[in-house]
C-alpha cells in the first residue's frame, strides 16, 4: 500500500465517522429533528475539527505506516507521481458526478415536498433550517467519502 492509498483509506474512515456524527446530531430515524442554532453551530464546528485533526493524524500516520510496510527506502521515494495525480483527477470527477446526481435528487425531492405535503414520495423534510444544514453538511462529507472510495478502487484496478 502506498502512502496515497493509506491516506485515502484514513480519510475515508474519518469522513465516515463525521457523517455518522452529523446524522446522530440531526436525525431521528429518517426525520430531521428541529434543533436550535447553537446545536447546529456546535455540530458544524466539531465536524470540521474532527476532519482537520483526523487528516493531520492520517497524513502523519501514512508516512510512518508506509515506511513500516515498505521499508526505509519508502521514506525517500517520491510522494506523488503522475499516476497519483491521474487517480486524483478521476476520483474528483466521480465525486463531481455524485454531487450532480444528489443535487438533482434533492431538487426533485423539494418539488415533490412543495407539491404533495406529507407524501410518501417526499419522506425527508429538508425545508426547515435544520434540514438544510443537515443536507448540506451530509452532502459535503458524502462527496468526500465517494472521492476517497473511488481513489481506493482506482489504485487497485
Amino acid at each position, binding site marked *: 500500500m502506498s502512502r496515497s492509498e493509506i491516506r485515502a483509506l484514513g480519510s475515508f474512515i474519518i469522513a465516515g465517522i463525521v457523517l455518522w456524527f452529523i446524522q446522530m446530531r440531526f436525525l431521528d430515524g429518517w426525520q430531521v429533528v428541529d434543533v436550535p442554532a447553537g446545536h447546529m453551530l456546535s455540530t458544524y464546528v466539531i465536524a470540521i475539527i474532527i476532519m482537520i485533526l483526523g487528516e493531520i493524524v492520517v497524513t502523519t500516520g501514512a508516512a510512518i505506516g508506509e515506511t513500516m510496510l515498505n*521499508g526505509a527506502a519508502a521514506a525517500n521515494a517520491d510522494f506523488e507521481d*503522475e499516476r497519483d495525480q491521474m487517480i486524483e483527477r478521476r476520483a474528483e470527477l466521480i465525486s463531481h458526478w455524485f454531487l450532480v446526481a444528489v443535487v438533482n435528487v434533492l431538487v426533485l425531492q423539494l418539488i415533490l415536498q412543495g407539491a404533495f405535503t406529507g407524501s410518501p414520495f417526499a419522506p425527508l423534510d429538508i425545508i426547515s433550517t435544520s434540514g438544510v444544514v443537515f443536507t448540506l453538511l451530509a452532502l459535503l462529507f458524502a462527496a468526500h467519502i465517494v472521492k476517497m472510495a473511488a481513489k481506493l478502487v482506482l489504485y487497485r484496478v
Partner: protein
Amino acid sequence: MAKGKVRNRIKALRTGEHGMTQSQLAEAVGATRQTIIAIEQEKYAPSLELAFRIANAFGVPFEQVFSFEP
C-alpha cells in the same frame, strides 16, 4: 476506434542485465514503486516523459522497452 495496448519489457530489463529492484527503478525515474508495479503489469500506460525516463534508466532506446499493440 478500438483501444490499443501499450506493451513493455520493463520487468525483463530490470531483473535481467540491470538487476534493479522496483524501488530502485522508481527512484531513478521519479515515480512511486506502485506506479512501476502498475506499468510492469500493464495496468497503467505511462506518460511519454516517464516512458523516456524509464528507457534512459536502462540506457536503451525507447522502442526496446515499449511497443504498441493496436
